[in-house]
């Protein structure tokens, strides 16, 4: 079963939930947690496991072979992203703009633009007792998160079979990176805060999930601050509220130190038990 944890905006407790839920579930099942927030991966700060694998991740970009090129200008014409440009008798490639579509390369009449790998980030795999943890990190200066997210998902599919509960910490927002991260999830948890910002961003996230035709539910974090509008909204839209995590300064303090929360705060653990029950029941009902 693949479960993505997402939120319309950052800072609503996505990572807190992901690391605590993963660690808790791993006490009794095979679990892999995967941080797909490749621009700002944070889960690893809370799970200090043993590094068991590291590899560079590449994207493919064209490289100009001057000797073969006839300067026909076709490559510049076919590239929709202005990533290959003809300047006088030079062809210039702008790797950060390239989407690796291969059009220029394969449509070049004389094979003067072979595709070569360029490093865009790295993937690390850790192990801590029953929990496996995979993290991908985009290099500074790389502007596109989506290819790295896609490769990380593929890796996970290859390396972990269906016996694993797979939890994904998705990037924030509602644009391409979130779509890529939640694409093949069986269930999406949207975590939000009971505030006007939280509600506004939740409605965007809900619209996104409806568009993707995903099964999803909501977890309200820092329940008790703000107002009741998020709960009213969920009720009106028939969206299940899976759990309400307490608002407690001690949670913020534990988080600030990079500590897990459920081992120290019983009320938080109680909520995790509920969430775990909810997810395992979904699994039994055949969402896998």
């Amino acid at each position, binding site marked *: 079963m693949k479960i993505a944890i997402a939120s*319309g*905006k*950052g*800072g*609503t*407790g996505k*990572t807190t939930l992901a690391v605590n839920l993963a660690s808790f579930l791993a006490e009794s099942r095979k679990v892999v947690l995967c941080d797909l927030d490749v*621009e*700002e991966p*944070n889960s690893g*700060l809370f799970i200090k496991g043993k590094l068991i694998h590291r590899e560079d991740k590449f994207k493919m970009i064209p490289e100009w072979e001057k000797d073969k090129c006839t300067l026909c200008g076709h490559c510049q014409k*076919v590239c*929709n*992203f202005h990533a290959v440009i003809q300047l006088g008798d030079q062809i210039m490639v702008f790797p950060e703009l390239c*989407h*690796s*579509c*291969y*059009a220029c390369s*394969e*449509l070049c009449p004389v094979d003067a633009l072979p595709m070569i790998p360029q490093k865009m980030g790295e993937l690390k795999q850790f192990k801590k007792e029953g929990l496996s943890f995979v993290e991908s990190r*985009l290099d*500074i*200066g*790389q*502007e*596109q*998160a989506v290819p790295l997210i896609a490769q990380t998902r593929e890796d996970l599919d290859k390396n972990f079979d269906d016996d694993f509960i797979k939890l994904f910490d998705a*990037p*924030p*927002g*509602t*644009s*391409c*990176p*979130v*779509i890529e991260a939640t*694409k093949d999830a069986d269930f999406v948890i949207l975590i939000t*805060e009971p*505030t*006007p*910002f939280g509600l*506004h*961003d939740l409605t*965007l996230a809900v*619209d*996104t999930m409806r*568009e*993707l035709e995903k099964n999803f539910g909501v977890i309200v974090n820092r329940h008790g*601050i*703000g*107002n009741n509008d998020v709960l009213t909204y969920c009720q009106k839209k028939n969206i299940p509220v899976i759990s309400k995590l307490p608002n407690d*300064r001690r949670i*913020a*303090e534990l*988080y*600030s*130190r*990079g500590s897990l929360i459920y081992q120290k705060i019983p009320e938080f653990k109680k909520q995790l038990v509920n969430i775990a029950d909810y997810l395992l029941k979904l699994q039994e009902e055949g969402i896998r």
Partner: protein
Amino acid sequence: MKEIVIISGKGGTGKTSITASFAMLGGKDIVVADCDVDAADMHLLMQPDWEKSEDFYSGVIAEIDQEKCVKCGNCADVCRFSAIPIIDKKYVVNKLNCEGCGYCFHVCPTDAITMKEQNVGKWYISNTKADNVMVHARLGIGAENSGKLVAKVKNEAKRIAKETDKEFIVVDGSPGIGCPVVSSLSGADFVVLVTEPTVSGLHDLKRVYQLVKKFNISAGCIINKSDLNTKVARQIEKFLREENIIHISDLPYDETFTKAMTNGQTIVEYDDANLKNILVNSWEKIK
């Protein structure tokens, strides 16, 4: 004209609440730009009148005319994004997967494929309760946040500031380190980094600062919730000294942030004591 961009690397640090407070304090001297188009929230505090709105088009996606398609499969073969599956024996484009590269368009023997411009959102010009103009936007669901909409919002804000002779542009920047934040930062005169003393706050601050450095922009930092973890707060201060980042101010952990927001107010309206003083002083330092 001075362009001040407020960013935070990660969400939840209070960036938008702080930016909105500066927008209030700047009043009629400034133009406000909300460049966090993916989760644009500032309008919830600024009561904009949505005076002008315009659709924003950016990028294209493929569309297949079934009448012309001879089912040769060329398009699906070349597509690197698995965006042309066969459904009911027809080649169709999966809109969410299509990157708009146009490769399929070039290899279709019967010209069955057209590349259609995409409406990726809307942008607005509003008058706010702070007696200034705000440019903001809303990205469509699942649209690619290529940074183009961010650039549009910023350029419009710049244009208005120039035309109306304003001193400052205050920009609520995007999160992350990708295209949107690159667009938010380009052309800025000063960057305000909002962070919190948590291990992830420090981690993201360092990461996003690497990007700021590439742009060679001078920077200052506000540590929000500074009393949450004094040890990490010290580490942040050390980092600021090492990198010559101005330590603008510290704000305490305070649920007033949330209360003000729930009231639809900025902090400087809701609070008339400590928090307000700190923010007033911060704004004086920044501008």
